[in-house]
């Protein structure tokens, strides 16, 4: 056997991963460097890069535009908003909404300029829809609200660094500063009913009202608190500092730096822009070392897109593992090359997966699972680790196939959950406890992962059994079918352990924070359903109520139970654990359940129809002439 092939493949892939660690140099405006600067948004320190990507995800469901990166886009939005207004960044799919706005239905993405004539309409509709509960909104209403919120978000981004009609901010600022003494005198004179210059007053108040808008609506807070500030969380807006100038305040270093950056960008002066970004980062690093570092790290994490790469690698590994299974009977040698290559790729990808989870944990300062997004990632990780362990015990490619499939599917689910924006949001008060997040949440999520794993293995059993003769194929001393049964049984045992311990730990957390161990809350019930279902599988087997096929069918139903507990209960919109109605996910859940039911029905077909268990063809019985065939 050519042992070096799997190694070669995996070394090449590792080389590719390593090569993407290094970011290519930027020419012109170094927006990626700008993207690393720390700001405060959603209650947490993050780099501009995260603001840019998460905003684009919400507006456009993509992390970039066709011809520009998120950072380039954000810089343009915040510094040359007029140009940014021409970029197609609002995604609209709903035909009714497109018709209402008079937009062409062949296009998907629209710019603010396309939408601008209809902003009033949108706002009127949004006022009406806002009163409807989100669960009972129609597709049109949901899309309109999304667009309305999107335009609001976009407008807020636009006034984060400079006033809306700015074209040379440094010059405008100087004019404002020059006007301050006369402006204040005019205000005082007006208050005292004395004579004042109307023009000066209006111009002065015009500035103030623009800065006031910047103060109130700026999206991220970009000015770190000064050294003598009460709290390190007390970040401010640029607008607030500009308003304070009129009361005799000074221009702070961060505001001065941002104004220089904005002006340089407006004057198409990359050199000054790049130098100011660099200087400011150094300055802010002196006072806010941890925050600056976090910004750099998170920007790297965003850039590296480890989970996206893991998806590609899992697909590759799955194809190879499937190839290994299918060529098993024809060419064991080829099959073994496929199998090894698949396994090595999965191990490499699992390392990448682990690294990315670890990186997230460091960035957040939290255990791995903090929300639905991270639970998907962690369930995938759990399945992959279990699959690798299975592959070590039963080296037939099954563990690899299921591991890579589960890894791929859960990461795709996670990518779709990320469209709502920031996936590292802060934890609400009751969840703000690393101890319980690290114990209850992790263990119960491993329970989900192992129950899914058992279900996926069972699906393999049913599909292989129905459509291939492989279940009867000998693997060492056992038939493949028996190997699968042993795997599913072992995993169900694991699942029982994790889901039980996880559920009870959840009860204990509830006892610690709400004063009752068990409250029949939907999420609790969901977890309990998984425990009971696994217990049923085990007891049914011990009692001889089911055999190999029965266990498989029960295990597939376990997928339905787990998906209900993981996603379904969140859609009931009640209870302490529900975090909002997720309407799109509901359809996907129903589709998933549909596929599982189909597989169960397939699995119920009589064994004579299964290719693996078809009776060996025998010569047709000869009926002696004159006798009546027995019915």
């Amino acid at each position, binding site marked *: 056997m050519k042992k070096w092939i799997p190694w070669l493949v995996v070394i090449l892939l590792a080389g590719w991963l390593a090569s993407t660690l290094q970011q290519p140099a930027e020419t012109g405006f170094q927006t990626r460097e700008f993207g690393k600067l720390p700001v*405060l*948004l*959603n*209650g*947490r320190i993050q780099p501009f890069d995260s603001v840019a990507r998460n905003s684009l995800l919400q507006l456009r469901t993509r992390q970039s535009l066709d011809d520009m990166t998120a950072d380039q886009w954000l810089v343009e939005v915040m510094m040359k908003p007029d140009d940014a207004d021409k970029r197609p960044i609002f995604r609209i799919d709903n035909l009714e909404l497109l018709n209402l706005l008079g937009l062409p239905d062949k296009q998907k993405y629209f710019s603010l300029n396309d939408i601008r004539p209809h902003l009033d309409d949108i706002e009127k509709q949004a006022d009406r829809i806002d009163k409807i509960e989100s669960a009972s909104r129609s597709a049109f209403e949901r899309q309109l609200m999304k667009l309305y919120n999107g335009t609001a978000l976009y407008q807020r981004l636009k006034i984060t660094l400079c006033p809306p009609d700015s074209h040379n901010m440094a010059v405008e600022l100087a004019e404002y500063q020059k006007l301050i003494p006369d402006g204040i005198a005019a205000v005082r004179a007006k208050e005292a009913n004395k004579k004042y210059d109307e023009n000066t007053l209006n111009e002065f108040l015009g500035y103030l009202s623009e800065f006031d808008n910047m103060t109130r609506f700026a999206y991220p*807070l970009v000015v770190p608190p000064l050294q003598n500030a009460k*709290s390190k*969380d*007390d*970040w401010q807006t640029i607008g607030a500092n500009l308003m304070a100038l009129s009361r005799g305040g000074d221009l702070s270093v961060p505001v001065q730096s941002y104004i220089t950056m904005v002006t340089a960008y407006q004057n198409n002066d990359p050199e000054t822009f790049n130098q100011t970004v660099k200087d400011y980062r150094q300055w802010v690093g002196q006072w806010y070392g941890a925050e600056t570092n976090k910004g750099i790290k998170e920007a790297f994490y965003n850039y590296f897109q480890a989970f996206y790469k893991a998806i590609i690698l899992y697909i590759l590994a799955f194809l190879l593992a499937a190839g290994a299974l299918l060529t098993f009977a024809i060419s064991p040698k080829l099959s073994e090359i496929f199998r090894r290559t698949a396994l090595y790729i999965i191990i490499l990808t699992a390392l990448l997966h682990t690294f990315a989870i670890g990186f997230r944990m460091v960035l957040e300062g939290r255990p791995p699972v903090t929300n639905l997004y991270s639970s998907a990632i962690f369930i995938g990780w759990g399945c992959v680790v279990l699959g690798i362990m299975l592959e070590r*015990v039963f080296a037939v490619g099954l563990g690899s196939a299921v591991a890579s499939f589960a890894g791929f599917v859960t990461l795709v689910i996670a990518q779709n959950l990320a469209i709502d924006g920031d996936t590292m949001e*802060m934890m*609400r*008060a*009751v969840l*703000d*406890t690393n101890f*319980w997040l690290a114990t209850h949440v992790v263990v119960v999520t491993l329970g989900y992962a192992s129950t899914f794993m058992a279900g996926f293995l069972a699906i393999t059993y049913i599909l292989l059994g129905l459509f291939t003769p492989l279940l009867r194929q000998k693997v060492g*001393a056992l038939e493949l079918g028996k190997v699968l049964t042993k795997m599913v049984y*072992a995993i169900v*045992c*694991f699942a*029982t*352990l994790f889901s*039980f*311990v996880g559920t*009870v*730990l959840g*009860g*204990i957390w509830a*006892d*610690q*924070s*709400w*004063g*009752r*161990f*068990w*409250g*029949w*809350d*939907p999420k609790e*019930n*969901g977890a*309990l*359903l998984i425990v*009971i*279902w696994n217990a*049923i599988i085990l*007891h*049914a087997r*011990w*009692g001889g*109520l089911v055999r190999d096929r029965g266990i498989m069918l029960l295990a597939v139903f376990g997928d339905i139970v787990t998906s*209900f507990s993981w996603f379904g*209960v969140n859609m*009931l*919109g*009640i*209870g302490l654990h529900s975090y909002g109605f997720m309407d799109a996910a509901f359809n996907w859940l129903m589709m998933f359940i549909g596929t599982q039911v189909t597989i169960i029905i397939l699995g119920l077909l009589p064994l004579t129809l299964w290719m693996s268990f078809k009776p060996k063809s025998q010569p047709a019985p000869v009926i002696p002439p004159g006798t009546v065939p027995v019915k």
Partner: protein
Amino acid sequence: MFFDRLIKFFASLRLTVVCLALGMVLIFAGTLAQVPMGLYKAQNEFFRSFVVFWQPEHFAWKIPVLPGGYLLGGLLLINLIAAHAERFSFSRKKAGIWMIHSGLILLLLGQLLTDMLAQESQLHLRVGDARNYSESDREFELAITDVTDKDADKVVAIPEHLLLRQQDINNSQLPFTLKVDKFYLNSAVTNQPAAGYEASGATAGFGTTGVWLKSLPRETVMELRDLPSGIVEVVSPAGSTGKFMISAYFGEAQPFTVAGRKYTMMLRMERFYKPYSLRLQEFKHDVYKGTDVPKNFSSRLVLDRPATGEHREVLIYMNNPLRYDGETYYQASFDPDDGGTVLQVVHNPSWVTPYLACLLVGAGLIVQFLSHLIPFLKRKQSL
């Protein structure tokens, strides 16, 4: 013979599987039912019951559709005990199973005890207030207070369920009988005649003129509460003092006099008095900067126990309750203006059982699976 078969039935794995499967159906249905009927009612009908009934609309009968939580829990308990008596020998090989199952028995019994013994109430304090009692979240009581002595009030509290019987109530502390004319667990009250409402019929106290009331079905929405009303007559040997309307809608106590002694009566949330008091010093509602996502809720209180001279400050915040004197105080809610706190007060003597049960079952599961896994892996390696 019959007895043997009975034991066999109760000890069978088939019964285990059937009960567990029905348990799943029950939990699933009970979870979905929370959407229309609310957590509290669904809990009572599905889980704290022997049989779950279904009553189709415009239908007089209730149809039993599912065994309830008590029945299934009880059956599983019998099943477990019978199975161990019948089938399992006490051996090292079975040690894991014994641990798991005895943990489960402890868990089930513990929950039953909690169900029967646990008492939940609430303590609502504005900043600066002190109280030495907590109040029930749902149950009312009719408090009759003898206020003749200026220095010491004597209170007789009559719980809601006694009023609901609509019978005469006598108490050795009271020199009169209370005749309960009407009592509605949930009611609406209005000050003008309206369809469905009846005149109160009270002849004394607050509700004599201009008050109409009607009975309402029990409240099912989680956040809403029943508001009871009723009519009671105070009858002493000297004759009737009058019919009084009592109602949760009245904000204060109504005075009356019997045989020269002054009393007040008031329908109020049931109270649980303690030998100590808690005063709210400060309530804090922290949010993450630039958002309205709550970061923490905390209440700083002073605990005062005159009998022992105990006087200290306590801090209650999310995930950090105060356990004191057999009761546990949790940060549960707060006033919209952030000027007051609501603490959940739980008295649950069996709170420790799930902790022990969890340890037992978890350890049992690990022992059991390792005792299968290790020999299996060893065999695998020797192949």
